[in-house]
């Protein structure tokens, strides 16, 4: 009897999972279907604006909530100083009333924030689709960048401190505290140290499509492999310890190429002190909005952050940052 129940339960569970998967898949497919690049950009901007509105509302509510909290604290402080029990009761009652309002505002603010983030995610998927349609000849690879996985050498130096004053010396942890953290080496008897602070958070956004900090630009990166390298490797693969090129594609929010921009490049490994081992530069704009980035080199596997500071040519605005996380 119990077995039958179990069976039923699992079948039910599988059906539910399958259903939700199909819904999710058909959801995005349906919405992109039949739309041209401009319509996709319009939709993306629409979701973006909704996301912004929600975020603004959410922020306003959080601010209101903060000022309510101050009022409540004041009332409670007043109550503690107050000698008359009658007034004390009244103050407690007022504080209670405000606390309810505060809770409501916090809840609503949180809900709007979550909604805003999910709308932004939606906007981004529309941007990506629109971008890929509009820049078809240039977008050869939509996947996040990886490193050639035939490389087994995962070693890197483990520095995670900027500098050490002599007085701190004996208070430092050892470099190999985390030696046993590495689950991936279960088939090895060698105990290779984990890379300190090198485990990228599991929900890290490693997309090769990003919106700039000020939300003025949309950008995409991919490896511009040499013809000979292309035959050997996956096009998204970054070579280890070899100088190579990327393409950085830049558009504005409506999919118009951002031309004649000045782009500075910065990069580092979170948890390490060092930056990039080279000084990469944009060497030319090979087509409107398509920038060739040369001199990139990654001397180790792991989590890298590459940031492009974009100074647009036509505006006197502040430079905008476009940041990509890579887990190589």
């Amino acid at each position: 009897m119990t077995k039958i129940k179990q069976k039923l339960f699992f079948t039910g569970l599988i059906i539910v999972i399958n259903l939700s998967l199909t819904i999710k898949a058909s959801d995005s497919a349906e919405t992109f279907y039949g739309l041209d690049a401009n319509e996709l950009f319009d939709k993306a901007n629409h979701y973006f604006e909704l996301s912004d509105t929600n975020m603004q509302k959410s922020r306003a509510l959080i601010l209101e909530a903060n000022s309510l909290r101050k009022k409540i604290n004041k009332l409670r402080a007043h109550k503690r100083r107050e000698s008359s029990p009658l007034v004390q009761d009244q103050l407690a009652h007022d504080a209670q009333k405000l606390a309810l309002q505060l809770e409501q505002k916090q809840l609503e603010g949180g809900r709007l924030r979550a909604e805003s983030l999910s709308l932004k995610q939606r906007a981004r998927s529309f941007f990506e689709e629109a971008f890929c349609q509009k820049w078809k000849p240039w977008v050869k690879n939509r996947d996040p960048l990886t490193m050639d996985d035939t490389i087994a050498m995962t070693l890197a130096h483990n520095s995670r401190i900027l500098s050490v004053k002599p007085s701190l010396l004996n208070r430092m942890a050892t470099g190999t505290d985390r030696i046993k953290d590495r689950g991936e080496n279960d088939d090895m008897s060698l105990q290779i140290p984990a890379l300190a602070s090198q485990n990228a958070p599991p929900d890290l956004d490693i997309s090769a499509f990003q919106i700039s900090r000020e939300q003025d630009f949309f950008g995409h990166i991919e490896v511009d492999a040499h013809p000979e390298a292309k035959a050997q490797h996956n096009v998204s693969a970054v070579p280890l310890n070899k100088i190579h090129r990327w393409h950085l594609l830049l558009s504005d929010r409506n999919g118009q190429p951002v031309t004649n921009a000045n782009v500075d490049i910065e990069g580092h490994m979170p948890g390490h002190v060092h930056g990039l081992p080279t000084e990469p530069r944009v060497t030319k704009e090979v087509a409107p909005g398509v920038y060739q980035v040369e001199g990139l080199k990654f001397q180790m596997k792991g989590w890298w952050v590459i940031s492009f500071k974009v100074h647009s040519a036509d505006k006197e605005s502040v430079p905008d940052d476009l940041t990509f996380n890579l887990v190589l």
Partner: protein
Amino acid sequence: MKICVRWLVIALLGTLLLSVVPLHAQDPYRFTEADLKFLKQFSLSRLPELPKSPGNVIADDLAAAKLGQQLFFDKRLSGNGQVSCATCHQPERYFTDGKALSVALGTTRRSAPSLLGAAWSPWLFWDGRKDSLWSQALGPLENPVEHGTTRNAVAQNMLRSYLPDYEAIFGKVNNVSELLSLPEDASPIGSQTAQNNWLTMTAAQKEQMSQIFANSGKLLMAYQRRLMMTPAPFDQFVELLNEGKTQEAKTKITESQVRGLRLFVGKANCASCHNGPLFTNFEFHNVGAPESNLVKVDLGRYEGVKALVKDEFTCLSKWSDAPKESCEEMLFLKTKGKELIGAFKTPTLRNIVHTAPYMQTGQFADLKQVMQHYNVPTPPYYDRSQHPERPHFDILPLLLTEQEIDDVIAFLGSLTSPIKDTDEWWRDPNNLSTKEVAQKNNKNQTH
């Protein structure tokens, strides 16, 4: 039924025990397939082909290597006629000199590194102030405390002693007698006299002498690319394990050395920089080795980068055979970042037990001192008035036990390749073989 349960319990306990005690604790020689795949990356058999040398088109020419070998051992390439490259890079000492600071015409600022494996390094010298072996070879020649010779003297020695061989490689030299009549003590760098004499020369003469000088470096590079190592016990061990010959493998390295190997790639964290078949990542790190000169601190890579930008003989220079766009390391050279301050190139650990003393100025006399430093390191010396910023520090304490330190040192002993005393490249072509030199040295010591 009861017996059955008892057996089950015993079997369960057995498997539990086996899974709790790691394989290598039962037998340090026991490696998994994944271990071997990992270790193979350190084997000499995995050494890639010599890197391409676009800046030097004769880098792999045999005649050039042979002429380079002559130059390498030629003491006429010095201010006092007593110093050759082999003075500080002695084949019988794995191309080092066994000194903390090298002594030639004067005393050098840093310790002479081994030349074995140098051909694979993108940067040369402890601070990487040269971007190729041919450019590197030119530095010591004009350095007053090393060879202490001049550009003209080097070129004239070539014309006088090696002209037919030189012309066979580089083509006809015009105006040989005119070039031989120029003042010997002439160079764009060096003493005031040398610089003054250099100024008296015509542009064409300067060009020709500098060309012969640059070509001398290219010949020395061609020679150094022939210096190869044969497998060390560690390499033999890894290869035998990969072939499944466990018993034979065990004869190559001791139990202490295997424990040391496990520590080397594990808890001792050595392999984080000393990796690959040459046991180096060829990068620059500050490990906080004691500062030797508190009056003029060594800024390491920070100075090296500054020197590179100004260097006369880089890949980007007119003396290089490379198209400029192929000089990627120079075109995208990292010139900024506090990680450059006081950072030195990771040296190879091959033959390390025979190349004492250690670190950039030989601060540590033996490997025990080196390990003690890594075990409880001192942070980099910092002098506000001399350092552009507080140097960054690349290492953390290891806290190894005495036994563990000894095991790591024992393991390093397994990285020694035999001295190639029968190899024609490991000897002065006009003189005794390295074996004969070693025998002579031994005799002198015992007498």
